[in-house]
């Protein structure tokens, strides 16, 4: 084994290190895969925090509420693709405040539809 390795090293000074790096990278991604699987198998880690980049309808999709619920909560006209930051900017507000308004609307809707 050691002899073979030395032989390979003597003849393939470039390919052998490349192989070692590729192997290490493969191991790295494999370990990371396991880490992801463990992390995301916890349902608490799965909810998406409402962020500025999210279109309001996407928030509705992500939190499993009808889009009108959130549109009404922020009195938006239907059909527009507006993000949470767009709304915050337009109202001289900030993302945190819009987020909490949306969270309230989501909580209310979920409470009303708890039986479904």
């Amino acid at each position, binding site marked *: 084994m050691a002899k073979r390795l030395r032989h390979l090293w003597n003849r393939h000074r470039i390919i052998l290190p490349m192989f070692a790096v590729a192997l290490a990278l493969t191991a790295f991604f494999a370990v990371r895969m396991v880490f992801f699987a463990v992390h995301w198998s916890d349902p608490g880690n799965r909810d998406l925090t409402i962020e500025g980049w999210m279109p309001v309808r996407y928030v509705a999709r992500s939190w499993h509420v009808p889009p009108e619920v959130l549109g009404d909560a922020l009195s938006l006209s239907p059909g527009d693709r507006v*993000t949470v930051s767009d709304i915050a900017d337009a109202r001289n507000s900030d993302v945190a405040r819009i987020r909490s308004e949306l969270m309230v609307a989501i909580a209310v809707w979920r409470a009303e539809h708890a039986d479904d």
Partner: protein
Amino acid sequence: MTDLIFGLVASHGIAIILGITFLSCLAVPVPSSFVMLAGGAFVSSGDLTGWQVVVAAFGGAVLGDQLGYEFGRFGGAPLMARLRRSKRRAQVLNRSRGLIDRWGGRAVFLTRWAISPLGPYVNPLAGALGMGRLRFAAFGWAGEAVWVTIYVGLGYLFASNIVWLAELAGNLMGLVTAGSITVLLGLFLWRRRA
């Protein structure tokens, strides 16, 4: 980073999807997979239109591929002519020509989606080594169709958590690419172990 990309898709829609997939096929390091995931997710939420997202992603990708191919074909011609002057190099070129004839289609197809990080480098190589334009396009289009379908489809199906999906997909792509390179280099070394 993912937030920024998702935000760009949210505010600019399909123009960003077309631009990013185009650039990614020219080896510009832009996260085309994130863009397509976001596109699929925003179709699901009703913010974008499905066929437009698919056409933009596919169109950007095949345009980028073809440009890379033409670049290799025309830019590579003088280089190839010079290499051919040496007999030994000409032999190597002829052998790689044989490899292209035998494996080129499969390589182009697979480097569109399964090992997509290698795609941008295969394009000019295919052009320079004289792979037929029609053959390149046929396998390329087929591969890009798979690529777009997978990413836009996953974004659509798992729309409620594309952040998670983007991390997972990025890692999986890294795993498959590093794994394929490991296997190829390993086979090469194994055959020369004696």
